[in-house]
């Protein structure tokens, strides 16, 4: 029968260096490539935030060598107001797209989703390879804007029109910089489409014998739900970016209003809509928030369960909650636009689902807390970061209740309150999810253990540091400190400068902690303690039943067969504290999924 093509094309292990490590079609190598890209992007984004914080905290502080990055942007090593905005835009874009989307979803998902479903590889390995290289190209295009024309765009990672659509009149980087930005994001969207196709088909069609959907671990579910969001959200962002490029290169005016006066110039334009950009952008933008955080929910649950030695209170409810988050994420995007001049009736229509979406989030948190209560949690770097994730998710989420209401949001929207909110709930929480995943899966990915002492130091410094940075942001916001300002010269802002100094010091401190992590990562990769066995954390899911690191086709000669739920810990009557999914042991007194 000539039907092999309906399933994954089996491929032999590559032999040449290029096919093995560069243009590899092995999902595990691609996962590591994504991780490396995210790490590089995170370091760049972090350095950008340092430069910005130094500028904010210490006025016109000269940062040695800054003029090397941009002669016009930082003459005499002191950045211009415009350059501050340019760095801010790049910090946001790099962090949101190339770290928060790339690391928890594309990196870990690529490596572990096929292993957790019991597949040899994803169904379309070549698409998978393309998805990484397309994403990498997008990153290069974005970074290239640092070194071309008048530098990167200054419009913020949301690129609000009309500023983003009017060309060089808008300031440095608003011409070529925006075009490169939009091109980069459009290319990124293609990479995400290819990735999402693979993720969804892997989950639906590439499960080993016995692996029903409900027997998939929570991480697999999280990646599956995330890829469903990614599939459609990025599909809307791409045409939006293409229209924006047309506004620049083809003379159209989709997002350029008539007779806009900017920098004392009346600009040509023929009645395009500035609000349209916001609608299209945030239609992508809000699902994007959940694309960044839902994999974290999965990773944290997975890590906690393994270290609590018992399953969550309800496997199903956690899955349904993540699904509800995904569904609702398409209906709440307008809460980013309460101050945009949007129709007030829409504000009401967006406010209600925004408050509703807190219900599944709260359910997830309550399940975590309820499951943690009374458990004997094994404390290690991974479980600490998982706990840290919960803490950040709650702290950042609670301020979401306030911001969900238009009347309060109008006061707080343009202030540091919002900056604190989304950095905690989306930025730091998602980063903690990445760290938890890294410490947890490092032995499986490399065959070596990470240094636990350094890991704990990293956690406590990051945890304390992150709160020291982002909690004061909330106070600043309530005090009326407007965001996106590059200097605080108004009378009511001058008394707040000491707080900014404190935040700057905290940021440098927290950033230093990340350097410890990078050292730990690289050192352990080459010289770390060799993992004692294939299952150092005594986990149950499929990634722990294969060799370390997994062979090219994940499971060697024999495909796994699954007999149990993903999290059979401390089952009464079982011979060990945990029952692997592949274990043939018969369990009594359980109501396992079919």
């Amino acid at each position, binding site marked *: 029968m000539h039907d092999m093509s309906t399933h994954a094309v089996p491929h032999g292990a590559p032999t040449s260096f290029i096919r093995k490590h560069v243009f590899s079609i092995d999902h595990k190598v691609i996962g590591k490539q994504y991780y490396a890209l995210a790490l590089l992007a995170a370091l760049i984004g972090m350095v950008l935030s340092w430069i910005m914080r130094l500028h904010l905290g210490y006025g016109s502080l000269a940062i040695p060598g800054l003029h090397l990055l941009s002669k016009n942007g930082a003459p005499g090593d002191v950045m211009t107001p415009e350059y501050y905005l340019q760095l801010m835009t790049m910090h946001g874009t790099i962090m949101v797209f190339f770290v928060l989307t790339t690391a928890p979803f594309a990196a870990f998902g690529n490596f572990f989703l096929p292993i957790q479903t019991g597949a040899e590889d994803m169904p379309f390995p070549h698409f998978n390879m393309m998805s990484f290289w397309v994403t990498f190209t997008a990153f290069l295009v974005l970074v290239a804007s640092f070194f071309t024309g008048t530098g990167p765009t200054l419009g913020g990672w949301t690129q609000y029109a009309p500023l983003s659509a009017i060309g060089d009149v808008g300031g440095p980087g608003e011409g070529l910089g925006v075009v490169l930005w939009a091109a980069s994001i459009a290319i990124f969207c293609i990479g995400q489409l290819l990735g999402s196709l693979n993720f969804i088909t892997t989950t639906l069609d590439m499960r080993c014998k016995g692996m029903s959907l409900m027997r998939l671990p929570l991480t697999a579910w999280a990646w599956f739900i995330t890829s469903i969001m990614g599939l459609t959200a990025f599909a809307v962002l791409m045409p939006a970016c293409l229209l924006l490029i047309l506004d620049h290169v083809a003379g159209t005016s989709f997002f350029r209003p008539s007779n806009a006066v900017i920098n004392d110039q009346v600009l040509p334009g023929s009645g395009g809509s500035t609000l349209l950009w916001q*609608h299209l952008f945030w*239609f992508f933008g809000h699902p994007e928030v959940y694309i960044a955080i839902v994999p974290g929910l999965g990773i944290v649950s997975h890590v906690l369960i393994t270290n609590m030695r018992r399953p969550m209170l309800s496997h199903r409810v956690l899955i349904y909650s993540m699904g509800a988050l995904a569904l609702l994420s398409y209906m709440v*995007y307008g809460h980013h636009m309460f101050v945009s*001049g949007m*129709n007030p*009736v*829409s504000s009401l*229509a967006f406010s209600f689902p925004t408050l509703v979406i807190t219900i599944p989030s709260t359910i997830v948190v309550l399940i975590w807390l309820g499951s943690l209560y009374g458990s004997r949690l094994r404390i290690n770097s991974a479980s600490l970061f998982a706990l840290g994730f919960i803490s950040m998710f709650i702290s950042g989420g609670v301020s979401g209740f306030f911001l969900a209401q238009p009347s309060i949001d109008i006061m707080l929207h343009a202030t540091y309150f919002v900056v604190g909110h989304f950095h905690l709930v989306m930025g730091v929480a998602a980063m903690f999810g990445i760290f938890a995943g890294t410490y947890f899966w490092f032995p499986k990915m490399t065959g070596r253990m990470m240094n636990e002492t350094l890991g704990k130091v990293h956690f406590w410094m990051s945890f304390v540091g992150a709160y020291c940075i982002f909690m004061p942001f909330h106070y600043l916001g309530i005090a009326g400190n407007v965001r996106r300002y590059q200097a605080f010269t108004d009378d009511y802002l001058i008394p707040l400068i000491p707080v900014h100094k404190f935040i700057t010091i905290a940021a440098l401190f927290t950033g230093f902690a990340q350097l410890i992590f990078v050292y730990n990562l690289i050192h352990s990769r080459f010289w770390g303690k060799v993992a004692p066995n294939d299952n150092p954390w005594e986990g149950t899911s499929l990634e722990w039943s294969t060799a370390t690191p997994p062979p090219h086709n994940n499971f060697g000669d024999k495909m796994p067969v699954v007999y149990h739920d993903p999290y059979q810990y401390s089952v009464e009557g079982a011979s060990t504290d945990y029952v692997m999914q592949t274990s043939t042991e018969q369990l009594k007194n359980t109501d396992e999924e079919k």
Partner: protein
Amino acid sequence: MMTTAADSKHSTGMGKDLIVYVCLLALAGIQFFIAYQNISTSQMFVRMLSVAVIEAGLALLFFMHLSENRGLKWFVLIFTVAVVFGMQYGWSDSFRLLDGVPWAH
């Protein structure tokens, strides 16, 4: 060689295809007919869109064989409808610059 239901799933219904094809042509014709009616643009929009949705439904269910796969049908429908409905929030804003106030009519 395994034989499954899929092997025989399309064996019937060349006649059904033709009926659907004729229906689609007729519905397309109705759209062209609506275009020449003397009604307001919004009325015309609503009528045309309703016809287009019926057309799309026919194409999905019969040309693309969604009607034969219940699980896939609901997966595709819920997924697409949720996304497309999410996009409909913006409309009230589109009139604002003309009318000045929301819901002026």
